[in-house]
Structure formats: structure tokens, C-alpha cells
């Protein structure tokens, strides 16, 4: 059986961008799910492992950057939805 996949596009809204604190909220949230999470910048570059903070940090996603969140696994839909909401809320920062 093929692995379930879910994809969603989000835009970084908080002023400071995806720095250590918001990235760590993202990683913490992603780690609660079994699905594999990858995040890639829409304008290109290496895909990041959504469960690795270092990997997320080198996305260097500033305010306004568009990211694609991809989940692969049984709980991918809920995972991607939760993570997209977190980004949309601006990580509760501003």
C-alpha cells in the first residue's frame, strides 16, 4: 500500500521569521506525529527535515517566505494541518 501523503503551502507571517524559537515550536509539534515531515522553500533549495531544528534553521525562512509542508505517513493529514496552523498563527509571536 502506498504511503499516505499530505501537502500544504504556508507563508511565514511573524516578523522575525523562522528563527530558533519558532523553529523549535515547529520541531516540537512535528515530533508528536509519526509521519515524516519535510519542509521546502517554494523558491527552491534543499528540503528540510521537519523534526530537526538545525535542518529547519538553515531554511532561513524570513517573514514572507512561502514554504511547502509535506507529511508522509498514517497521521500526515492531522500533522500537516496542525503545523500549517502554527505557521499561520505566526507562532504566537507578534
Amino acid at each position, binding site marked *: 500500500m502506498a504511503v499516505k501523503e499530505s501537502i500544504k503551502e504556508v507563508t511565514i507571517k511573524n516578523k522575525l521569521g523562522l528563527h*530558533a524559537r519558532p523553529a523549535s515550536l515547529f520541531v516540537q509539534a512535528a515530533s508528536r506525529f509519526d509521519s515524516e515531515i519535510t519542509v521546502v522553500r517554494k523558491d527552491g533549495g534543499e528540503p528540510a527535515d521537519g523534526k530537526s531544528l*538545525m*535542518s529547519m534553521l*538553515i531554511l532561513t525562512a524570513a517573514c514572507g517566505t512561502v514554504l511547502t509542508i509535506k507529511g508522509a505517513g498514517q497521521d500526515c493529514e492531522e500533522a500537516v494541518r496542525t503545523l500549517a496552523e502554527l505557521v499561520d498563527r505566526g507562532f504566537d509571536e507578534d
Partner: protein
Amino acid sequence: MKKLSGLWRNWLTGGLMKIEQENAAIEHSAGQETVLKGIAAASGIEIGIVLVVGNTPEQPLSFYETSPISISEQDVPFELSRLDAALETTRNEITEIRNKVKVSLDEKEAGIFDAHLLIVEDKKLKNEVVAGIKEKLLSAESVFSGVMQRYITAISSVADPYLKERAADVVDVAGRILGHLLGWKRTLLEHLPGQRIVVTKELTPSDTVMLDRENVQAFATETGAKTSHSAILARSMRIPAVVGIPGILSKVRNGDVMIVDGYQGVVILNPSPETLEEYALKEAENEKIYNDLLTESGQRSETLDGYRIALAANLDDPAKAVELEKYGAFGVGLFRTEYLFLKDHIPTEEEQYEVYSTLASRCGAAPVVIRTLDLGGDKISSLINFDQEPNPFLGLRSVRLCLAYPHLLKPQLRAILRAGVHGNICMMFPMLTCVDELDELLRILEQIKEELKREKIRFSENIKVGVMIETPAAALAADQFAERCDFMSIGTNDLVQYTMAVDRGNERVASLYRPFHPVILRLIRHVVEAAEHAGIWVSVCGEMAADPMYIPLLLGLGIRELSMSLVSLAPAKHVVRSMKYIDAESVAERSLLCSSHQEVKEIAETFLRMTARGVLDLNIT
């Protein structure tokens, strides 16, 4: 070890300053002047900013590039376990800080430490480092710093100023982890954030190798005595030091202003404007006395009644050989080679040959005495597997170690013999107790000469070989040593320590470390008589040789050569030129009859007061 430049260096420095200021502000709100008493270990006065250097990371963070260190296949599990340990310790540390911050700040502020924890726990990062150690066969810190730098470069290359600034979080954590891999003390000592007064428990010789010497103004240490390593280092660097200050580490904080008064043996925390003014005057006065002495350094080293005394320098850095003339030294009486072995690899024969021959050619015809490896005791090199010994000063140290591990000794002997063709090199063996050790060393030396002949390599066939007399056993057997060698040099630091059975670095018994004790004088006299009988030369190269109070005594006992740190030479020459040998002889004779060190000290002090009072005021040692 290459230093990091640019951004990291700036960040590091900035970060250190910030932490210093914060610490100072939080923990030292009131600037009450406090005087703390210790032992005057190196003269001089300095006023500056404190940097506390501990073994734990209560202190600043630094992150720097290490030159890659290769490891062997067998070392991989060890490097992996070091990495695990460093990550674990860092995690515990950050958790602890997080919990503290949570109490005083809100949850959101504490969140940044969650981010720090996630870096430490990042599986992808760890896997990269583990793979690097296994595949590239490099040490944990080499791989770790390489990997981190890639990340940091990636993050900070972004245009967005907010994100760029946040690279600081990664640098912070990376610095902590590296700090644990390398040892905090070492990391800090190598990267002083500017001119600082270093306050620490005690410095080990390996610490001093790493030390950022340009930026140390003074030392103040919690333990130690006048003869401990930080004290000796301070005197050779000509910076003030006060040691054995109980409780200083709990009283100072980074960023405090402090005066180190190496004459009185006190440090003054948060000095008042009046105190500062007073000290600035004293400082200027002492500089003047010393500089006046320095102008005499070109004069002959001769007593008023015409006895020539050879004054040579103790060196550990061949680059300093160019300063011999400035300070008025005739040759090098002791070249220490340990420092070559306290770096990141055991020096090869060629590397040593390079150092020794450079030194020899810089000194021209003047003698250069190279001491063979004197490790052990408190001088431990990470390159050599030392078993933990319950009593290292009575253990496998110095020449004993060299005889046990000929692979350390042989390349050094070859290098010294070969360098001998470039100048007037002599070879000296330290820490002997029995003549059969010397016999064994001489046998090895002959073997090596044969080897070099067979290999048709040029070397100094008739190199002079000497021994250091630094144990009571050797001093009492000086006649037998004298028959077998070309010269003897009395190492007074160890000789006093072993004779008095006192650890010179232990402040609880340091007062029993008494170079003025008549028994020490008797031993020296015995060695001099043995040398005279055998017709060989004898010198003193320990701390006593550099102290103006002891110089008349030593000369009176028959010593004709003294070797000391460069900066001690000018005052010593002044003492020699201000006295008559015939008077020194009577000083020595009277001292030999005393029963206590105080009586000897009184005689010596009175004599110096009558002959070279200025030096006594300067109190150079």
C-alpha cells in the same frame, strides 16, 4: 589551533563582554572596596578588569575553529563516547538554566532554551557528526566544529537581519558543546576577550601553553604558593601575580575592576578613586627603577673585587633568544623542552632539530643548555598515556619517564646531537637520583652517536653532557655524578621541595618550603665542592638564582653561574656588580652555621640592604 576570525570572533568577544557586564551588574551592585590578602608571587602592579577562568561553564561561551585532529580506527568508540558525554552535559546544563529562568521570567522567554535543547538533541546533527568521526577518522571536536560551521555559515549568509542575528543561538550552543569537548578552561584561556586580569584556582603548565599571553595583565589565584606554576609563569612574563588568596573565586565576578599588587601580595576589588591614584603613582615609580637597571644590562657581570659571574637565561621559546642581549644574558642556561610536548602531537626529530638548531645559531658562541624532556609530576601532556599515580612527584616523571619510554627520548637526543653542529649546545638530564640512571642514559647516547655515524649524519661528537641536581640523593652523590659528566646544574625548586618534603603548590604547607634553610645551603655547598674536586662547572638554574636575596649567598657558596628568566637578569646583574665576592663568602660561611631559615634570611637581607638596596625595594621576584 587557528583562531576564528570575522563574525564569530566579533560575536564571541561581544558575547563575552555582554555576559561580563550582566554578571557584574546582577551580582555586584555595590562597588565596595575590598582588600584580599594572598602571597606575593610576582612583583608589579596592574589595574584591570577581571576574567574568572574556571573549569565549569558558569562562564562565557566561545566557539572556535579547531585544526582537524586525526584519530585511528580504534579511537572511534572513544571519540563517540566523548561526543555523547559532551551532549549529555550540555543538555543538563541548559535544562538547569531553563528551569531557573522559568521561575524568574515568563514561559515564552524560557522558550529560547527549549530551542537550545532541541539543537543538543537534534538527531540529524548528531548523525552527521557520528558519520564524520567514523568516515573521516577525525576527533569529535574537529568534526563537530566543521559541521556546526557549515550550519552557522548557512544561517548567517541570509539577508534578513533578524534571522542572521539569531545565528547567535546556534553559536551559543555550539560553543557550549565544544567547551565540554575541549575543556572550558582551555577554551577561555586561549581566547581572552581583551586585556584581563585572570582569576582562577590555579594554572597548570598545559594551561599556560594555551594562554593568550598578549592579553594577560596579571594573575590572581585561589591556591598556590610563590613557587607554583602561575607564579613562575608570571615572573617570566614579567606580569604581577598574587597567589593563595583564599575564597577569591567566590568574591569576584567577571567585569569587576581589580588592582593586583604583586609587591604586597594583595588584590583590591572595586578600588576607590583615591586608591587608584595611589597605585598609579607606585606603578610609575617601579617602572622607573626597573628601566634604570635595564640600562646597566650591557655592563660586565663582575663583582667589585673582580670575580666574573656568568648570568644566563632560562628560556622555553626559541624566539626569545633575540632578547638575550637586551637583558644582558650570556647564553641560555636552561632551555626547557616540555612545551614542545604539550601541543597537539609528539614533536618529531626533525621538528625538534629545527627548534634546537635555530636556537643554537641565534646564540652564536654562547652556550645553550638544552634540558631533555622533564614531564610528569604536575606537567602532564595529553599526548602521553599517564597512568593515574597516587603521588606523581614521587612517580614516573622526568628522566624516569624517558627511560621507560625510549621513543620519547631517542628522537630528542638525536635532534640535540645534530643541532650541536650549529652552535655551542650542551645537553642536560633532569631529575636524576642514582648514578646508574646516568650510566644508562650515557649508554643510550653512545648508541645514538653510533647510529648517526652509520647513517652518515653530521652531529656534535663531543657535546657536553650535564646533570641537574634536584634531589637530595643526587646532591649527596654529587661526587659520583661529577666523575661521569661535564657539568652540573642545581635545580633549586625541586631540590628544596624534596629536601623539605613540601609540595610547593600546597598553600597549607607552603610556609615550610624554605630555600633559606641551612640544610639547603649545605647541600649546595656539597655539590660545589664535588664539582671543584672533579674540575667541572656548576650552576644554579632554579628560582633561587633569580632572587637578589639569594645571589650573594649562592656566590659565596662558590657558584659562578646563575640562570634565570630574562626579566630577572638586570636586577641580578646589579646585585653582582654591587658586592664583593670576599664579603659574599663570609655571608655564606655565617649562614652555614645557622640553625634556622630566619637567621639565614636576616643575614642575607642585611647584606643586600648594605650593597644593593634599590633592588630590595624593587622586590623583583
